[in-house]
């Protein structure tokens, strides 16, 4: 059995009377692409937000790379190596594509106010390295030609790619993508698929929330299905696809 990267233990979250997550437990293994699917409102994004520290879970917790994750500390999660994208793209709209990725380097760099004021050799070197790495990442997601454009002026597909580049800039060991294929056409989805595949091959574990069942089934090593905040099944795509509970959840039969 492969090493476990992330373990969720009985994570629960409710908003008022709505139980968004009911004791969800799952494990993500090192180096896999893990799919999280479920109908709208099943709690996928809530699970994401609990994991990345934007929400405080009402019960349970997460263990990441052998140590517990602090609740309600998103910047700590990024520091530990969890990077994410958002379902409704959240870029720094009025900064250039390059600057967006450079911001992603923040957590792996150190220069402070005095470094910036003095512009000493260490700060200059670090700044050059940040820029260099950001350009590499823009090439990696194939939008380097848009480096100088404001993020909000990129096409929808390029914005999704930019968000992934920004997340990769934090050097994550777990990359969480929240519906990256939403609103994409078939060509764009195919390109996205090879990008995600490449990211995994380069050593980053990927957690994928997606509606596009075809994409998930073709790409993921294992899939978990959420319905009404509860985990229905966690298994290989072929098994999940045939499970009557999953079919029921999706078709409402």
């Amino acid at each position, binding site marked *: 059995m492969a090493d476990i990267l992330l373990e969720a233990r009985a994570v629960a979250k409710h908003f008022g009377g709505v139980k968004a997550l009911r004791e969800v437990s799952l494990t993500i293994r090192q180096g896999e692409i893990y799919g999280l699917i479920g109908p709208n409102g099943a709690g996928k994004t809530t699970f994401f937000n609990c994991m990345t520290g934007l929400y405080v879970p009402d019960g349970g917790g997460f263990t990441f790379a052998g140590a517990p994750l602090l609740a309600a500390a998103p910047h700590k999660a990024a520091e530990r190596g969890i990077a994410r994208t958002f379902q409704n793209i959240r870029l720094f709209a009025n900064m250039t594509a390059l600057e967006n990725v450079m*911001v992603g380097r923040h957590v792996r760099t150190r220069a402070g106010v005095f470094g910036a004021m003095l512009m000493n050799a260490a700060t200059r070197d670090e700044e050059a390295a940040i820029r260099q790495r950001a350009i590499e990442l823009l090439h990696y997601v194939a939008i380097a030609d848009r480096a100088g454009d404001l993020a909000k002026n990129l096409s929808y597909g390029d914005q999704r790619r930019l968000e992934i580049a920004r997340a990769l800039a934090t050097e994550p060991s777990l990359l969480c993508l929240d519906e990256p294929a939403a609103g994409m056409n078939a060509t764009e989805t195919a390109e996205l698929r090879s990008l995600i595949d490449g990211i995994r091959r380069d050593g980053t574990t990927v957690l994928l929330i997606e509606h596009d069942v075809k994409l998930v089934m073709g790409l993921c090593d294992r899939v978990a299905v959420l319905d009404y905040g509860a985990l229905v099944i966690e298994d290989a795509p072929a098994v999940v696809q045939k499970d009557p509970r999953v079919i029921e959840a999706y078709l409402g039969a």
Partner: protein
Amino acid sequence: MSKWLNPRSATGILLIAVALIALPFVAALGGQAWVRIVNFAILYIFLALGLNIVVGFAGLLDLGYIAFYAVGAYTWALLASPHFGLHWPFWAILPIGAVIACFFGVLLGSPTLKLRGDYLAIVTLGFGEIVRIFLNNLNAPINVTNGPQGITLIDPVAIGDFRFSGASEILGVSLSGPQKYYFLLVALAIFVIIINLRLQHSRIGRAWQAIREDEIAAKAVGINTRNIKLLAFAMGASFGGIAGGIFSAMQGFVSPESFSLIESIMILAMVVLGGMGHIPGVILGAVLLTVLPEVLRYGVGPLQVAVFGRMLIDPESLRMLIFGLALVLVMRFKPAGLWPSPERKRELQGDA
């Protein structure tokens, strides 16, 4: 640095330098009052640049910025006047003023971390007023600030025996007090502008802009938004503190009425009118909003007499009327400010 060395920028810098050196002598032709106005314009550049860090870079609307100016001014006033009998040298007081203002910046920043936009504006507005009211009333039971009477006979800036107040002769050129302060202020301004430019294009500057753009996304990429916001408040406040110290020394007198809400609003107007987040724009805004009211003060009366043969409207009210109208027009036709950053200009034009 190589881009500075091409002949065109070298000529540009040379021209600016000549203009900066000539300015106090040209201004003096209209009387020393004009040199003082120029000095105040530079002082407001400090303040506007300081506020620009908080409002322009980090996107935190601060309506109480004048409080830090007040803190710096009173720090100087208390440490270099007969009020407490202290006469510390400027190189000690100026950093102390900056540090105390910085402390107040963090003090204001910490309870407001979760607030944004209108809510933040109201809390900071309250903070500015609290500081002013404290200064007004801290004359009892122990007389710290001398209340509404203010503090008088404040020491000027002095390096050794060389005092910046009063006329003196340097290298055969006779300089008035305000002219000497002018050169001190220009030197400090260049220093402040360089620091601002460097901060803007640094890791910290990018983090500020990221918070301005989307705080949740900023957190998600690992920015400790609490610390970075506090840093913005602290840095902005320090610039205010330094400006306050110089103000105190230049005037020789401080009282709480110099630090009213309208001052905070004026500085904010300089930042917004000039071009939020764009350093050259903010400088332009500060200069225009300091000099324009003065030009109107001296120009409106005589102009009316020349055109209509008599004074129709009281120049003082007309001055504010024209000033207000100018602000409205600029915001209507140049919403990004008079000299916006190229990015922000594109943003408001909304081109793709």
